[in-house]
């Protein structure tokens, strides 16, 4: 805690990058001083050397500005140049000193030394001295407490008794908010003090609430002003204990601001609860009781007010005082409290506990105050429920109630009263639900007593967990585990020598009070006991998690393991030490081991997850010690969460979810995966809660996306893809929390990566080589000095100086080497990034999508076999997902656009196109309209294409060699990008499918043909296949030519008749099916004819001057069809002399295109090919303005295509 915060005060740090600016400045200054002028730049080498020397000196000087003291397992620094900082640190330390768990060494030596050093550094600072005194006092108390605990442990019975007392006092529903330490002396002392203090005496008198209120009034308290009361109580507590209660001001402020901002979501509620929990348990032990007292006082007030009400108004129904108020709003809601009305008014008391007393009982005389109070209450409740969807309905009802109340408070009829009761119930149930969820509980409490208990448990557990994590972080390893193991070992020794009367190592005993274990670990004592009736060590049933720890401790030693199992038996009460006197230590240890083996807990709140995920590299994954419970194993360890009322819930549900903190240790393979944190392991399916319905699921995904900054209105493809992916993998809401935590953690980059991303590559390189040069330079210097050594061996004075210089240089060198390592890593990362350039994403949603994919992939893989996903694979996947989302989006508009443009309806469908083609082409004459219709149905296998071909008259060979290629050629022309206008857009894709099928048929037929041939050798067969295939293709080309021959006149005639412009325009909306279907082929071949002569009419083999003119005036666009293939086929083209062939491809592919081909495909899909481009965009813009909700179209689409 305190140690971590200190690092920011240090400008130069061995672990951090050295601040070059400071060094450089200091160095130059030193140089200037040394030379008395500007550094001489003519000799750069010398200058550099000087600079380095100066830099080293500066560094040393700067490092001298701090004092380092080992504390919290690391070096804690006291800044010597900044008194304010030091004071601040000490103040912070003082705040936590009384509650923090210190190690023995820290407690006894390190902290005193730290304080000593601090005082030595700032002898004049009164503040520091004050804080130091405070800390010393806290330490003293701690030591005293520890001694007390030792005494208590020697006599557990007494401790329990004490606890019992504490509970009596704390009332049944109020277990201490923090794992209470049974420190007798201080409790006794406080009790005595309480008895002395007037206010506290009243508060703890145990009298009825109304009596207390009366007495408080008598003491001059205005009970409606709760904050005032609280401050007075606090003051009283201060007086009693002479210490400040550590309700830190900023925490209180934070809580206040949270409340006043309005609780809008369960997350916020949770945050609030967390804040409160953070504030509460930090109360110094001594003031704990007072904190409870405060709470109780408030509860009592509330109750008493209600009672007074009841008494005054003689209500028939007594207020359900059995249910204590919800802890959240009451104790820590300073904002609403001022609004709480006087005790006379009905509702205010009800805010916290939601007991809306009979409104009919309200007294009209307090009207103005009441009105005000009502206003405040209304405001508060509105704020509390605002934005929470579940509470929306309730809010409306509440407002209605307030309307009623504000109108006439005294005259409420029966109906209204019932209404109010209903509301009360509803609100209670909803809040119970909300709050329990906020408390991280899986099982809903049934009343507020339970709720409060659960909340307290949750808080405590979080606190414990935080403590564990803190210590883990501090020790940089699973110290906790080591400690347990050590303890085991010690205990094992004891079992061995049977000297149990020696108390167990107390300083490590986890502070688990009886309240703590009652709900959780108390049960394992009973539960596992049953299955193991036999006493043999081998058959002892253990909670799996504990078994792992025991295995680890035993480390293969069977005897040792047996002994450890003995311990377990002792813990269960099945075995005893010889002496049989003190099994407490064993129990504590086992309990602790159990606790540890179960933590960190699955249901940890979001923030805990977040914290856990922001791991430091050195943390060893303690999740690894957690084995997966085999499915058949009966639940030996009941849920630690199912305490109290929730005991009925399935115990293993919560417990078996192994929430493992990210495993940084196994990051080895991929640099990119190193950068990204590990996701938590997937929880086993069995223990998951599924969403109640689809809507809940959708809305939770939506809420998640909203939190991540992508509102529902964001329809970018990547965002849509993220939604889809999350939806695909999501099973319950904890998934989302974990995912969110993962994504948050993903934002934290390593220094090297930051460098890699932030700095120019050449600069990094330069710096790297610069460093290399410097290192070489230092090496040289060292060698030089060593030579001098040899020469001046006898001169001790000189030798010392030289030795110091060498040490200095070595130090400098190691620093440089460290820097160089970071740079090297940065360069490697940069290289990696550059390699993945085409996959890198600039925009946030894409990155998020990648991370989400990575997360789920890792989770799935981890479940399978511990593999790691490949970065490139993930990126490919991301690309595909985006494309899918995009094409879905584009397809939607495309579909609409096509249906909106009338000309589309005038264009021929696939059937009419095929009919026209077959009618016009003499080679296809034998295909009549009916047959063509059948062919059109082949596109989606409604008709079998093979069957259709076989059904044609004539030989199969002829049909395959002539008819099919010819059809393919025509269809290719029809579907060509440049000829989009020639077919109805609905049929376009069908035509393409059919074309593909025809081509595939050609390929397959070639194979079949060769299979039937007598050829035996593979190369020959392959050659035959290709030859056959080429022959068929050649036929297609040749037949195109036929089509030209037959249709040229037709073309020319039409051109004259309709006018060129119309014709070239593709005949949109005017042409008949026959013209359109053939125009592609004809124009294409016309162009091909001219292609050889490159558009020169003179070179065309066309006699008619009119035709020549027509051809030469054809738009270049018309040239497209058919020309390229013909041009390229040197062997088969009668017109082209220049051999082109595939060689023409060389150099045609631009690298960019190859690299971005997917993107390009995507764009072509998105905007539609060729002519559709304009249509699509224009239509989208036009429709977007006024058209109907997309759902309608979605429905249409579904209807159309299914």
């Amino acid at each position, binding site marked *: 805690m305190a140690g971590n915060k200190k690092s920011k005060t240090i400008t130069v740090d061995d672990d951090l990058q050295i601040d070059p600016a400071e060094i450089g400045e200091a160095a130059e200054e030193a140089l200037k001083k040394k030379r008395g002028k500007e550094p001489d730049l003519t000799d750069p080498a010398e200058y550099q050397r000087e600079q380095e020397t100066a830099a080293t000196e500066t560094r040393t000087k700067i490092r001298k500005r701090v004092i380092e003291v080992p504390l919290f397992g690391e070096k804690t620094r006291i800044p010597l140049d900044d008194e304010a900082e030091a004071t601040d640190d000490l103040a912070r330390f003082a705040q936590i000193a009384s509650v923090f768990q210190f190690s023995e060494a820290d407690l006894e030596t390190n902290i005193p030394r730290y304080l000593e050093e601090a005082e030595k550094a700032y002898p004049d600072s009164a503040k520091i001295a004050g804080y130091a005194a405070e800390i010393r006092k806290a330490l003293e108390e701690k030591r005293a407490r520890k001694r007390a605990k030792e005494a208590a442990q020697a006599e557990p019975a007494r401790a329990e008794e004490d606890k019992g007392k504490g509970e009596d006092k704390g009332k049944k529903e109020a277990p201490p908010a923090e794992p209470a330490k049974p420190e007798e002396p201080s409790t006794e002392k406080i009790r005595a003090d309480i008895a002395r203090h007037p206010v506290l005496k009243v508060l703890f008198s145990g009298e009825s609430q109304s009596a207390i209120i009366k007495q408080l009034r008598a003491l001059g308290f205005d009970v409606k002003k709760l904050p005032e009361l609280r401050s007075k109580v606090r003051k009283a507590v201060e007086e009693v204990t002479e210490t400040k209660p550590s309700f830190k001001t900023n925490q209180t402020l934070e809580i206040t601001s949270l409340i006043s901002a309005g609780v809008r979501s369960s997350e916020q509620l949770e945050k609030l609860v967390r804040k409160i929990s953070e504030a509460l348990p930090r109360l110094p032990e001594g003031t704990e009781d007072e904190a409870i007292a405060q709470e109780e006082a408030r509860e009592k007030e509330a109750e008493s007010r209600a009672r007074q009400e009841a008494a005054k108004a003689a209500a028939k129904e007594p207020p359900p005082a059995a249910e204590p108020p919800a802890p959240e709003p009451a104790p820590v809601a300073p904002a609403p409290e001022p609004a709480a009305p006087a005790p006379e008014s009905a509702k205010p008391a009800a805010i916290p506990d939601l007991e809306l007393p009979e409104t009919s009982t309200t007294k009209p005389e307090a009207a103005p105050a009441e009105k005000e109070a009502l206003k405040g209450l209304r405001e508060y409740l509105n704020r509390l429920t605002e934005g929470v969807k579940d509470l929306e309905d309730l809010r409306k009802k509440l407002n209605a109630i307030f309307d009623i109340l504000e109108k006439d408070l005294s005259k409420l009829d029966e109906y209204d009263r019932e209404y109010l009761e209903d509301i009360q119930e509803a609100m209670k149930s909803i809040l119970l639900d909300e709050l329990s969820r906020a408390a991280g509980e899986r099982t809903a409490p049934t009343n507020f007593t339970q709720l409060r208990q659960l909340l307290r448990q949750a808080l405590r557990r979080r606190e414990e967990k935080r403590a564990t994590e803190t210590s883990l972080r501090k020790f940089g390893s699973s110290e906790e585990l080591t400690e347990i193991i050590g303890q085991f070992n010690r205990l094992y020794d004891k079992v061995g020598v049977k000297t149990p009367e020696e108390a167990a190592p107390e300083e490590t005993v986890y502070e688990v009070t009886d309240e703590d274990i009652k709900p959780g670990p108390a049960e394992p004592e009973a539960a596992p006991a049953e299955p193991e009736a036999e006493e043999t060590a081998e058959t002892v049933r253990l909670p799996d998690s504990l078994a792992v720890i025991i295995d680890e401790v035993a480390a293969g030693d069977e005897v040792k393991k047996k002994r450890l199992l003995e311990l377990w038996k002792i813990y269960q009460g099945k075995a005893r030490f010889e002496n049989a006197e003190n099994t407490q230590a064993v129990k504590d240890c086992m309990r602790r081991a159990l606790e540890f083996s179960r933590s960190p807990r699955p249901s940890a709140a979001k923030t805990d997850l977040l914290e856990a995920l922001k791991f430091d590299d050195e943390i060893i994954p303690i999740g690894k010690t957690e084995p997966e419970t085999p499915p058949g194993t009966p639940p030996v360890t009941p849920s630690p969460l199912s305490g109290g009322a929730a005991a009925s819930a399935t115990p293993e549900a919560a417990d078996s979810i192994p929430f493992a903190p990210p495993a940084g240790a196994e990051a080895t393979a991929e640099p990119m995966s190193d950068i990204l944190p590990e996701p938590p392991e997937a929880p086993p399916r069995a223990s998951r809660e599924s969403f109640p319905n689809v809507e809940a699921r959708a809305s939770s995904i939506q809420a998640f996306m909203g939190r991540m900054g992508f509102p529902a209105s964001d329809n970018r493809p990547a965002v849509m893809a993220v939604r889809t992916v999350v939806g695909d993998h999501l099973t319950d809401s904890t998934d989302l929390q974990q995912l969110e935590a993962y994504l948050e953690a993903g934002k934290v980059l390593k220094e090297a990566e930051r460098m890699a991303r932030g700095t120019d590559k050449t600069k990094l390189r330069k710096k790297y080589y610069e460093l290399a040069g410097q290192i070489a330079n230092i090496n040289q210097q060292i060698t030089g000095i060593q030579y001098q050594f040899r020469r001046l061996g006898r001169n001790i004075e000189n030798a010392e100086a030289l030795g110091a210089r060498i040490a200095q240089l070595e130090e400098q060198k190691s620093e440089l080497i460290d820097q160089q390592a970071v740079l090297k890593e940065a360069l490697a990362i940069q290289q990696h990034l550059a390699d993945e350039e085409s996959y890198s994403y600039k925009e946030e949603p894409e990155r998020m999508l990648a991370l989400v994919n990575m997360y789920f992939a890792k989770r799935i893989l981890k479940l399978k076999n511990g593999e790691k996903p490949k970065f490139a694979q993930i990126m490919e996947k991301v690309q595909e997902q985006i494309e899918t989302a995009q094409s879905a989006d584009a397809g939607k508009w495309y579909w609409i656009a096509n249906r909106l443009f009338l000309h589309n309806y005038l264009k021929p469908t696939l059937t009419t196109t095929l009919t026209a083609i077959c009618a016009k082409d003499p080679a296809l004459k034998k295909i009549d309209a009916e047959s063509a219709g059948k062919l059109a149905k082949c596109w989606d296998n409604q008709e079998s294409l093979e069957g259709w071909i076989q059904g044609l008259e004539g030989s199969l060979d002829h049909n395959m060699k002539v008819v099919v290629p010819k059809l393919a050629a025509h269809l290719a022309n029809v579907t060509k990008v440049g000829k989009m206008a020639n077919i109805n857009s609905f049929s376009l894709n069908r035509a393409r499918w059919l074309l593909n099928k025809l081509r595939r048929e050609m390929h397959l037929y070639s194979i079949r043909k060769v299979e039937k041939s007598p050829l035996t050798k593979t190369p020959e067969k392959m050659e035959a296949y290709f030859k056959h295939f080429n022959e068929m293709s050649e036929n297609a080309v040749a037949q195109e030519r036929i089509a030209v021959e037959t249709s040229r006149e037709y073309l020319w005639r039409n051109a004259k008749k309709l006018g060129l412009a119309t014709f070239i325009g593709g005949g949109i909306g005017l042409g008949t099916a026959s013209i359109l279907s053939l125009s592609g082929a004809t124009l294409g071949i016309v162009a091909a004819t001219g292609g050889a002569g490159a558009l020169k009419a003179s070179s065309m083999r066309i006699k008619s001057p009119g035709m020549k003119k027509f051809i030469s005036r054809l738009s270049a666009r018309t040239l497209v069809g058919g020309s390229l293939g013909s041009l390229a086929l040197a062997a088969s083209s009668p017109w082209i002399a220049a051999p082109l062939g595939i060689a023409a*491809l060389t150099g045609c592919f631009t690298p960019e295109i190859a690299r971005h081909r997917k993107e390009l495909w995507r764009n072509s899909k998105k905007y539609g090919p060729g002519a559709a481009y304009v249509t699509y965009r224009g239509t989208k813009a036009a429709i977007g303005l006024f058209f109907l909700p997309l759902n309608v179209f979605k429905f249409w689409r579904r209807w159309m295509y299914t």
Partner: protein
Amino acid sequence: MAETNTEQFNGKVFIDELIEEMDMQNEDPDELARLKEAMLEALTRMVFQAAEEAIEPEVVDAVIEKLADEEDPGTIVRALLRASPGAQLAMVQALGEFRDNTLEAFNQLKE
């Protein structure tokens, strides 16, 4: 889709690689030469067919206007292909398709 080094595309190398993939590189050289010739022709057909079908009219407009006086059809073709992303993509896909077809045929026809 098979990964193809399209930056320095060479049809012959492509076919050689395919033949190696089919493990036929050690066959009789004469036979192999004939096979390669047939393959080259098929490949040419498929690739140019694809390019022809996918080339954008806008590209053709622009290129032909620029090269109105160009006599060499090879130059025109190359210019067209270079300028058209659609054609290039289609060709890349056609290469993949050709490879798939070849391997399919090979697997069915091999001894």
